[in-house]
């Protein structure tokens, strides 16, 4: 028999065997789900998925390890507790921006205005809250900035989801227009220093050492609890669970990596008599948003519909999904999270000027792609964007320590982006897919 149907790819030997099962074969009691078997079966299944092109975050993590080894050899300063904390705070704005963009990239859309959106919102924030100016309460000013982000997302969503203009065009227009709006809000050549200590604290202050350990404990408890809820539901439904050993392995990995990171950050990294210890405050903030976003994408209908629309919008529409509403919401989430990224960035830099955020958006897109998110939509997770952003921040940080000319940084970042895209494309072609999708 031949699988001459509409498959876009050549069926593998296994599929042919599966489809050629004649009518003499008895109907199985239960159709498999890939959850059966012990650790070794699961590892084999995972390996075959990776070989089949579902590399996920693997290339980015491998790249990160390579970069860490290279920079540790090349610079005595790279793997120090001080630089490690610095790397994390440098990465945080990019991680937030990449996560923001993942929401629209999953739809196969793009938001080129995410950077300037953060600039407009943070411009509003500093103008409203600055002690020399309107002197608004900083929390209120921050809420207004976030609302401005949501409003911008609503605006983009209207033109993309409702009117049907390609997001590339709408957000390119905003990218240009908002650079002007930033100039109008802040004033040509203007620069506002962030004066509110609480905002500066996000990137500059640290948790108490014990709070870092509590953070790891909370992460472990939440991971364990959600896994147990999943297992209970599967047991109740009478479908197999993955072997529980896998859960233990995962928790041990989280505990070890998290433990090393917290232990490293709890060292005194101060250069003077004043001790600086602890996990930067931005780390738990970012991890919380990562967890919340991943929860929404993996476990809610909204997340399921986002992936469905990214995969096949027509199928989603026929299934009764309100495609316009989901698209619209994704743009609102993206712009709102972009403002959070701007907040981190302003906290790190300590000021907001009229060109704030104009350079960052393509780094965010690059981070998502490096992490394994497909620009065609439907493939990728928030953690991919986050890891990709750490890769890009590591390149900037490491090359900065080597005293190389600034241009080298951009060249290397661009090279890594193309490399990541190539790895992704080649892995899918090997798996029988096509280069373009």
């Amino acid at each position, binding site marked *: *028999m*031949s*699988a*001459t*149907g*509409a*498959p*876009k*790819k050549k*069926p593998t030997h*296994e*599929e*042919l065997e*599966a*489809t*050629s*099962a004649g*009518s003499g*074969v008895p*109907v*199985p*009691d*239960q*159709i*498999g*789900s*890939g*959850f059966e078997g012990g650790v070794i079966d699961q590892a084999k299944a995972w390996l075959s998925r990776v070989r*089949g092109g*579902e590399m996920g975050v693997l290339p980015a993590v491998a790249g990160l390890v390579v970069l860490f080894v290279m920079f540790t050899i090349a610079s005595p300063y790279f793997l120090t507790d001080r630089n490690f904390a610095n790397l994390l705070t440098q990465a945080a704005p990019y991680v937030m921006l990449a996560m923001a963009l993942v929401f629209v990239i999953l739809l196969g859309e793009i938001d080129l205005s995410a950077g300037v959106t953060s600039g407009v919102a943070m411009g509003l924030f500093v103008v409203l809250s600055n002690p020399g100016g309107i002197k608004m309460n900083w929390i209120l000013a921050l809420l207004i900035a976030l609302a401005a982000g949501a409003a911008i997302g609503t605006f983009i969503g209207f033109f993309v989801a409702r009117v049907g203009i390609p997001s590339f065009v709408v957000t390119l227009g905003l990218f240009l227009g908002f650079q002007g709006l930033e100039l109008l809000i802040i004033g040509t050549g203007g620069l506002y220093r962030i004066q509110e200590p609480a905002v500066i604290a996000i990137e500059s202050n640290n948790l108490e050492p014990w709070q870092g350990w509590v953070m790891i404990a909370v992460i472990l408890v939440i991971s364990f609890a959600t896994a147990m809820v*999943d297992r209970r*539901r*599967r*047991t*109740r*439904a*009478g*479908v197999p669970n993955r072997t529980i050993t896998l859960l233990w392995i995962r928790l041990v990995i989280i505990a070890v990596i998290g433990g090393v990171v917290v232990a490293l950050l709890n060292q005194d990294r101060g250069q003077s008599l004043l001790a600086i210890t602890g996990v930067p405050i931005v780390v738990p903030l970012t991890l919380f948003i990562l967890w919340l976003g991943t929860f929404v994408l993996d*476990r*809610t*209908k909204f997340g*399921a*519909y986002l*992936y*469905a629309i*990214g*995969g*096949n919008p*027509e*199928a*989603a529409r*026929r*299934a*009764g*999904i309100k495609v316009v509403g989901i698209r619209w919401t994704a743009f609102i989430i993206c712009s709102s999270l972009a403002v959070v990224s701007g907040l981190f960035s302003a906290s790190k830099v300590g000021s907001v000027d009229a060109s704030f955020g104009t350079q960052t958006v393509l780094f965010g897109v690059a981070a998502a792609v490096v992490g394994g998110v497909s620009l065609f939509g*439907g*493939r990728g997770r928030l953690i991919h964007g986050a890891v990709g952003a750490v890769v890009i921040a590591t390149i900037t940080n490491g090359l900065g320590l080597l005293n190389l000319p600034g241009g080298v940084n951009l060249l290397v970042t661009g090279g890594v982006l193309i490399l990541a895209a190539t790895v992704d494309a080649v892995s899918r072609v090997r798996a029988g*897919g096509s280069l373009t999708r």
Partner: protein
Amino acid sequence: MAQPIVELTDITKSFGPVSVLKGVSLKVYPGKITALVGDNGAGKSTLIKGLAGVQPYDSGTVRFDNNIVGLHNPREATALGIEVVYQDLALCDNLDIVRNMFLGREETEWGTLDEGQMEREASETLRSLSVRTVKSVRQKVSSLSGGQRQTVAIARSVLKDARVVILDEPTAALGVAQTEQVLALVKRLAEKGVGVLMISHNLVDVFAVADYISVLYLGQMVASLEATQTTSDDVVGYITGSKTYTGVNV
């Protein structure tokens, strides 16, 4: 004869000046397979899009279980238990079989997806249709062959107690063995008591499974016959308009 589950009477539909359906009548019976045949442009797609609620009819009555219903959007059709399997299958390649089968009607508990429940129901539905060709319900659809995709699409349609399933050219683009499997699946669908309306260009397939054959010609139903009472040659005649049938019984 049993009570029809769906009965269309004098359906019309125009796109601007072009009149596509000119007073079409059609019946679909529970547990029976009705084949809808006709040449390109005869109005088959327009007729089923109306039944699916995607493109409402201009005039005419739709009776479902003998009650007059309006089909203004896909949700109304779905609520009645009318499901359509389109020719392009409308599956999301990037999602697995379970997520595809439940697309738009996921099982939730406390606002979160109940994957275990969905996986069990998907697996049960596939087994109730005696599907042997799918190894794992968590396979991505992108890894499936054409016949397996058709299987998933049909299984999706009957997941939630569908009463009427409309199949748009289910065997087009399939190889011989896969066509055989899908036709067997269509028969099992009818055996479950579902009213099946199958569009097809392939008269061999039509005569292999259909109980009734309805022929559309240029927007009019020119013949509605029992499959056993007619021949392939006659049906070709009605499709091409070279023959007319006087005893149209609907």
